[in-house]
């Protein structure tokens, strides 16, 4: 009896491991678990303090400007780090335009980009942003904890970061994560 239990043990271990992987994969497919996800320490915290000049002819902004606008509007806003040299930003761009059309205010920060290149990017493809600041040295991006562009932060009316997306906001991500969140925050 003991020997039989011992011989069954490898099978039991394999079944347990298989069941574990099955659960993990299931959650990954639902999108409720992502082992590659790197959490932002800023989630649930107020926006960091910063002041940035405008990009070319566009109006720049500081943390105070952002908070004032949030209080005045009384609804969440999206802060988006982008660059003209970044390919995923091109992929993301149509979805930002759609979100902007649907009434979500988006403020952009051009990350480590030449002013003429970044403004050319917006002029050529369409402007989803109400204001665009330039973070040419990339220091403010460090304060925000930006991993790479594009990266977006949803700030609620109280000035607290509620959601972050490292990578392009695809239509799927917008539909599954951002838009439902906007409904609950509105």
């Amino acid at each position: 009896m003991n020997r039989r239990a011992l011989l069954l043990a490898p099978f039991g271990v394999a079944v347990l491991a298989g069941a574990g992987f099955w659960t993990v994969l299931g959650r990954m497919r639902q999108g409720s678990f992502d082992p590659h996800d790197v959490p932002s320490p800023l989630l649930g915290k107020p926006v960091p303090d910063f002041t940035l000049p405008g990009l070319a002819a566009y109006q720049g902004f500081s943390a105070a400007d952002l908070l004032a606008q949030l209080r005045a509007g009384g609804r969440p806003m999206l802060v988006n780090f982008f660059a003209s040299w970044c390919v995923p930003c091109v992929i993301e761009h149509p979805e930002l335009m759609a979100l902007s059309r649907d009434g979500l205010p988006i403020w952009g920060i051009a990350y480590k980009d030449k002013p003429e290149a970044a403004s050319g990017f917006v002029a050529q493809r369409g402007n989803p942003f109400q204001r665009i600041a330039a973070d040419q040295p990339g220091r403010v991006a460090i304060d925000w904890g930006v991993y790479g562009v594009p990266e977006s932060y949803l700030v609620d009316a109280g000035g607290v970061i509620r959601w972050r997306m490292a990578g392009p906001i695809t239509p799927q991500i917008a539909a599954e994560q951002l838009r439902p969140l906007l409904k609950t925050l509105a």
Partner: protein
Amino acid sequence: MIPELGHFALALACALAFAQAVLPIWGAHRADARLMRAAPALALGQLLALGCAAAALVWSSVADDFTVLNVAENSHTLKPLLYKVTGTWGNHEGSILLWALILALCGGAVAAFGRGLPSALRARVIGVLGGSSAGFLLFCLLASNPFNRMWPPPLDGRDMNPLLQDAGLAFHPPILYAGYVGFAVPFAFAVAALLEGRIDAAWGRWVRPWTLASWSLLTGGIALGSWWAYYELGWGGFWFWDPVENASLLPWLTGTALLHSAIVVEKREALKVWTVLLAIGTFSLSLAGTFLVRSGILNSVHAFANDPTRGVFILGLLAIVIGGSLLLFAFRAPVLAPGGLFAPLSREGALVLNNILLCSIAAVVITGTMYPLVADFVFGSKISVGAPFFNATVLPLAAPIFAAMVVAPGLAWKRARLGPALIRLWWAAVAALAVGLTAALGPAQAFPALAFGAAAWMILGAFAEIVERIRLFRTGLGNSLSRLAGLRLSVWGTTLGHAGMGVLVAGVAGMSLATQNVVLLRPGQSVEAAGYSWTLVGLRDRPGPNYAERVATLRVAPLGAASAGGSFVMEPSRRTFPVQRMTTTEAAIETNGLADIYAVLGEERDGAALMRLHYNPLAPWIWIGALIMAAGGGLSLLDRRARVGAPAKARTRAQAEAQAPDAGSAVA
């Protein structure tokens, strides 16, 4: 047209594999000789069909057929021909096809060389291999078809990841996969033995060469991958305990254990149940490693196209192969008759110790690899387990192996005495102590000094076996030399295998003394570091086929050398691949066999170049050691006794026939 033929050949191979899985095993069960005889033909047919499919994929890639989605996503007209060929297995779909092709090759090899096997055992082995093939081919057809088309075709392809465009890495996957997949044969033998309910010494003799061949290939494959990381990633490291690396190390560890326990089955018919479990476990770990890498479950620097959906398919496949075989094991293992008894202190006992330690290391590596996932999933905390954990847990388990592997070959079977085995190693122990002390008094700290001592112990101790066998200095030199010539190749195999491990350990210990300097140099400036004077002669651009290259020319001369005779030129570079928008560093490495001089070109600022200059003592020994180990496996494989069955029989028959006429004439 060609891709359609390839697609058809793939489907044909899948159908043949299903037939190969069902007919021979059914035939063996019913003792139907005709059904069993179908096995080799089906295996060879499957191999032929898959060969055609792989050739079709290579042709599509070489001919730049961008209507094939796989080619469009991974190739480019400007990509050099070599990488157009090797690029076919540098991506997910193609690598699964390569995997299946090697599996079919194993089946074909058993079909072609297995004539000496009992027909029922051969039919079952080929059937089990066919079953595994069928699963992988179904996965290939349904979830990762390399022949999928795209219309309209793009003007040009998206090119391959530049890091993979490298001659070393081009041949890394086939060798590594041959190692992984080769363990399918011991696995098939184990399952066949469980089905049959019988294991004898002949089974052990059959399993061992296959294990040996796979083990040698896996050793070579891992070494090649590590060497690639060393010179291509430009960090100067050689092993990162990355999940993908661990996934290849796990079957190596259990495969090494299998290699040794199969000896016990062959010589003493003991440890049967354990050896069967190891054979199943080793192949299971090979499969599970692939699954973990492809499903995107584990974080790794080696990004394959991750896809949870594919992960579910592979998981289902694994459930059938691993779950099925382990269930069979649970119910059939008690049938296997236990074999010879042995005292704890004996050759068998030493091999059991080897198995226990190797499997403990494997368990520790699994724990370290999986823990971040468990912590993330169960506790929601992001952690990473890195080198400190693995070094702290693996080294204490490896140290007793290093100590024991020298003594074990000198122990007798069944019951041994430790004294004589230790006494004949006295000179190796003295030399190892001397090496360790010299290192400790010299540049090394306590730990590397210990490792140097262990390395000397392993290398010299391995040759002590040879010294003992030829009775060197205890009999005439001529007698010793003739004994040396008469030594069996498998003895040399053991010696090289164990000595190679020692060389590897010496290399790793040497690397712990490596120095690294980051310097900012303008053309014409020079700097002194690591006993050399480094002069940046110039920076220039050099065009490449599908990249632009920035090359630094360094003149390096040993300090204190009066003449310029010892100086040499190094050209580290950075390559920018416009299609993939990626930059790779090409480290320049100058080696004299005892140390590597390693230079990496970094960013440039205001006409000055940031450079990293490394001095890596004994670095080449890491890969030389691994190669010696693999060569030891190969030598063992060449031993006549390893090629049991048909050849041995033919010889005895030939001898019998040669003697027969004499006997006849004597009677006459």
